[in-house]
């Protein structure tokens, strides 16, 4: 029996892809999110297709003071965790966030503050145990600020920095930390967006995450060529970049 994995924000398409890949390898899963009815369906599907035990429960990312009790409940049900995938996030609207601070705050909270709250607790538990992993979904948007999504980009970029620090802290304890930076993935978030190219399926992205965890990778871009797209975008000098319409 392989170890238990907690998936936060489990109803996202990428999380579903990763859950399928882990279940196929025989891992027990705990699916957490807001929409419990959808979690129930996902759990049933994974258990039927792959014959593994899949638990699920409500998790409110914004209710930070409930996180410790939540994690306790998960460990009570599943035993010690092998790892955690953090897949929740909120794209929001940059146009709205520019004029409405509540939207900006919602974007920053969901993508960064809420993530820090629950991962701090997970990190302590895994550090004590002395093995396991934490995987977090950041974004290529966090690699450079652009006018079209800089609030989201700032929050995801902060999250990526946080994961980097966590990786450094947990290394001696033998806990691996993986930062995932997806480019265009074919999900509800990107459906109908103009100007997309080489869009990856969330099933493939999920499978890539699972192999990256197994190989102990630090940072992955999915699909892989986004590493080079972002390399180019990061290398454009700022005095030029600020004039671009991106």
């Amino acid at each position, binding site marked *: 029996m392989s170890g238990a994995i907690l998936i936060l924000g489990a*109803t996202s*398409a990428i999380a579903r892809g990763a859950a399928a890949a882990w279940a196929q390898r025989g891992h027990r899963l705990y699916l957490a999110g807001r*929409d419990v*009815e*959808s979690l129930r*369906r*996902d759990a*049933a*599907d994974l258990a*039927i*297709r792959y014959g593994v035990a899949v638990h699920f429960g409500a998790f409110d990312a914004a209710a930070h003071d409930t996180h410790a009790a939540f994690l306790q409940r998960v460990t009570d049900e599943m035993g010690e965790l092998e790892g955690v995938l953090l897949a929740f996030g909120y794209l929001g609207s940059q146009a709205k966030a520019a004029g409405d601070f509540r939207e900006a705050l919602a974007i920053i909270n969901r993508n960064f503050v809420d993530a820090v709250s629950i991962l701090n607790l997970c990190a302590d538990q895994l550090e004590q145990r002395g093995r396991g992993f934490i995987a977090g979904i950041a974004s290529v948007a966090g690699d450079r600020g652009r006018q079209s999504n800089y609030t989201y980009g700032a929050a995801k970029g902060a999250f990526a920095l946080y994961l980097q620090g966590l990786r450094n802290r947990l290394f001696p304890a033998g806990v691996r930390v993986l930062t995932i930076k997806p480019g265009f993935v074919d*999900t*509800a*978030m990107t*459906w*109908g*967006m103009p100007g997309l190219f080489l869009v990856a399926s969330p099933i493939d992205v999920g499978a890539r995450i699972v192999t990256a965890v197994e190989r102990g990778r630090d940072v992955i871009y999915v699909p892989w060529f986004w590493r080079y797209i972002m390399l180019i975008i990061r290398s454009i000098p700022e005095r030029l970049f600020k004039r671009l319409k991106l």
Partner: protein
Amino acid sequence: MNTLNKDIAGWGRYPVQRCELVRPERHAELWSEAPSLLARGQGRSYGDAALNEGGRVVLTERVNRFLAFDREQGIVRAEAGVTLAELLALTVPRGWFPLVTPGTRHVSLGGCVAADVHGKNHHHDGAFSSSVRELELITAGGRRLRCSAQENAAAFQATVGGMGLTGIIGEVELQLQPIESGYIRARHQAAAHLEELFRLLQESDGDARYSVAWVDLMSRGAALGRGVVMNGDHAARDELSGGRRLTPLRLPPARVRNIPCNMPGWLLNGLSIRAFNAQYYRREGSRSGSFLLDYDTFFYPLDTLANWNRLYGRRGFVQYQCVVPTATALEAMRQLLQRLADSGHPAFLGVLKRMGPAGAAYLSFPMEGYTLAMDLPMKGAATLALLDAFDSVVLQHGGRVYLAKDARLAPASFRAMYPQFAEWQRVRRELDPHGVFSSSLSRRLGMEEQA
């Protein structure tokens, strides 16, 4: 919810229409507020049944979760976006097989229900609906209605074969049949002409569970309607030998080749089809005795060629499938094949099957008799005129055309072919008084107008 305006088509790739696509990731998002809604599974109906020009099309492909699987009783419940391919991958290794399967695995359960599809065993087991224990129908306003042959029976009989026009099918619960192996014991018999083909189909009826005939649509004169009858039964474990016997439910993975892009329109012409058919007739007709095939090869031969609809080129093709009552079926089929021969129109795949008694669903296609399906490359007015001529033959013999394949039937012909339309419409009005659910097919056939 994000929307995507896109030109889409059915499997025949005629017609092509602009629709507003949404693709929910979850069951809870299947319903959305829109002036016109239609669910679409894998888009394997041929014409405009899964199109909604200018309206919203709800793609159900991601709403595909298994919800329950009783391995003792062979009962499976799933969201309607689950495909038969996914179902088979789950249930065959555990010794269960769908009671009814159409000629491709790449169809959603919702689509199977909406078209009340049939298989090679209709004369034994009826249409898909006979294996449906229960449905969940999401009606206008997002209300969820459980229905079955017992509970909300009118809604059930209007939804089965109802072409998605009563609502969105959310969940399907199926009764499966037990199998001992994933293999089929098959037997082929060549028939030199149509009459012999009918005779062989009738004879094999009693002993074979599955029965279908391939028809050479390019045959002429005395050989008109020649073909090969293909019978099959699930093989028992002790009919297998060697490694197959040890793992009778495990099959080697099927090799799939892909047609990567549109082929030129002239590829499938009279000459190339005639050459293929002659070779196919000789090879398949001369296989003697019985032989074992894995279920994929027997039920889904075309699935080994992904995107085979591209063979017909950019203009696409139409499939004409009709059923005619037994009494004059031979005469009707002879007339259809003769008209086809006289027209000189190329036609590729021809399939003839026996059908058993009709079910209780108002718009379900099958009726006791014989059904013929023909694939014709779309050549514009010439093709459409030929198919109108086919309609008059079918009507004259009291038959009907299959809506899941249709792209061009006239409203008056439709009403004459489906005598229970008025009753269906009454039930549909109760379920959807404001006519939210509609499709290009329903508007073309005048299904929105008072019967």
